[in-house]
């Protein structure tokens, strides 16, 4: 295992990973009788790609929901950027620079792709209601500035052609990409991805992988992702947390995890390559 102190480390391919960005300490979450998460701790370091894997119903999505403030754990602490995070509403969490995508696509169906991406930029827009009503002046300027940034992301994710299409009409895979675009538009420091590649074929997964890597590379965005495709997880991530029935059963580099017997038993079935 790597040294998991707050210090950074260097990955196999030579990227430098910074100090701890977020740390989950002893999180426990249950719904009535169902224990979704039991006493889990792990950390996410600045600039790394951190994967969370585990069988269905293990509590992975719930963990992301805890991070984004949607679920409030019964026990445990969330540390972010070196400070303990007080209890806050999800939108406040978002303003701290945490953006995410959802397992069951949560796009705004009534809007076009462009508008969806623009909602990602809402936290960067500050014009008041009154000025917006007048439009000319500040509101228009701000709109155009943010539009430019949104367009950059649209270009980056190669969804220019569907800019004006209502998202409800898009096929599943493109929706996932639009969701990513929306999250990226927020220019987050921590990006949470919940099964970004479910329902995609290999080619599309390749594209998606490339986007994720590029985001990580170019903007230095820290990424936590949940994924069931072991190929993707093993290739992309720097470190992997493995959950099963709400418990953590493994944590380490892909290679370590791949060879961990508990993980093989609970999740992988056969050792994967």
């Amino acid at each position, binding site marked *: 295992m790597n040294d998991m102190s707050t210090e950074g480390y260097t990955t196999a391919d030579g990227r430098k990973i910074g100090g701890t960005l977020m740390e989950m300490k002893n999180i426990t979450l249950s719904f009535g009788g169902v224990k979704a998460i039991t006493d889990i701790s792990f950390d996410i370091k600045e600039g790394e790609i951190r994967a969370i894997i585990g069988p269905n119903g293990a509590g992975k999505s719930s963990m992301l929901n805890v991070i984004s403030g949607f679920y409030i754990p019964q026990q445990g602490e969330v540390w972010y950027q070196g400070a303990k995070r007080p209890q806050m509403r*999800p*939108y406040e969490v978002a303003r701290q620079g945490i953006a995410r995508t959802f397992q069951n696509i949560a796009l705004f169906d009534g809007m076009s792709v462009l508008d969806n991406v623009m*909602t990602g930029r809402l936290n960067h827009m500050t*014009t008041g209601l009154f000025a917006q009503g007048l439009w000319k002046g500040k509101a228009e300027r701000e709109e*155009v500035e943010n*539009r430019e940034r949104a*367009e950059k992301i649209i270009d980056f994710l190669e969804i220019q052609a569907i800019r004006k299409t209502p998202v409800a009409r898009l096929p599943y895979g493109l929706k996932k990409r639009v969701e990513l675009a929306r999250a990226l538009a927020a220019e987050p420091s921590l990006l949470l991805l919940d099964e970004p590649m479910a329902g995609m074929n290999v080619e599309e997964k390749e594209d998606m992988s490339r986007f994720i890597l590029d985001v990580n590379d170019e903007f230095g965005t820290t990424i936590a992702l949940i994924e069931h495709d072991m190929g993707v997880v093993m290739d992309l991530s720097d470190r992997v947390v493995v959950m099963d029935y709400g418990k953590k059963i493994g944590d380490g580099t892909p290679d370590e995890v791949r060879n961990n017997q508990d993980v093989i038993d609970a999740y992988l079935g056969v050792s994967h390559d």
Partner: protein
Amino acid sequence: MFYREAGDYKTSYQDDGQTFPIKFDRYRYYFVLFVAFAMVPFLINDYWVNAIFLPFLIYSIAAIGLNILVGYCGQVSLGTGGFMAVGAYACYKFMTGLDIWIDGVQYALPPINIFFSVILAGLVTAVVGVLFGLPSLRIKGFYLAVATLAAQFFLVWLFNKWSWAYNYSASGQINAPEREIFGVAITGPSTDAWATYLFCLVIAALCAIVARNLTRGASGRKWMAIRDMDIAAEIIGVNPLKAKLSAFAVSSFYIGIAGALFFAVYLGAVEVGEAFGIQKSFIVLFMVIIGGLGSIFGSFAGAAFLVLLPVLLKLMLADSTDEISGFSSVMSWVFLVAFAAAVVMLVINIVRTRSLIAGAGVGWIFASIAAFMAYALTIGGMGWPTDIVAHLQLVIVGALIIIFLIAEPHGLAQLWRVAKEKLRLWPFPH
């Protein structure tokens, strides 16, 4: 073919973000404005203004307001009547000189200019709207819709009981005294048709433009995000409290203005339970849905539809004239053409789908309706007993609402959009 966008390039995001990105649309829009502002005022009389244009414009404002709340922000409200009442009574107090009691001494403001009275009434309503919007943070969907009825019933009750609001008049009625702008009477008995029309038109136009600005920018996106999926919206950083309450505020502001105009300019005298009852809430909601949720144009279309339809039906069914008027003969031609078109549609549909009602084939229903209209108008009204006509009106309005929803659940605005899309592709089918 008819409708081209090729060659209409945009070189800046500004251009792309404008309201009518297609040139053809833009010109049509200017044309409509020109007709509304520069031609209509010279052509209308009392009947047109009082029976059609004023209610149309005023309901349009209310519908835009409600559309912001329901269509953009997804918070279904049935409190429109109550909020209009707030607007009306606030306007009344402002235009007759607001009186306040402080330590048992009465102070009265001088009457405020009618234009500002209307705007202030909107602001007061916005505040009330925000108050009644507070439960929306917890309550959603139809539960919220029913909850807003609390506002409806409470406000109506309040204005019935609170004699300060109606200046202690014996019956609780309020009457709009005569008020002027630039020396032209806008309210009261001796107004001119064009003056009241222009006054409402200006306000409606301003309202529409502001609403469009709000909905195409950041606020609009916040509202729509809340509408489409409130949890996701919150997680990506929309403060639901602010978004919902701002929608309630803006929406109530519009509805308040509509209420003020409804009372002061249109009716001149109202009694709260009669004028702002629960029926008002429903009728404005119909307009919004029939017109199209989340569409400013739709608000106008819906208002036009529900204001015109009963008048048209009455004209067709109840009236009877011995000689055919110019208007009805023109109309009869219009409808005959519509009828012919509908028949062609029907035939095409039968040929294509081999079924009478499949798919878009409600054509034949429209065809028969158009045929009847043409007939009725040509002979200048059927002259049926008014009660039968009144019952039939209910039947027809009800049936039309259903037919429209089946044909296009997203309202007239969407019908319009599909038509445009088809025109754009014409003569190719796809």
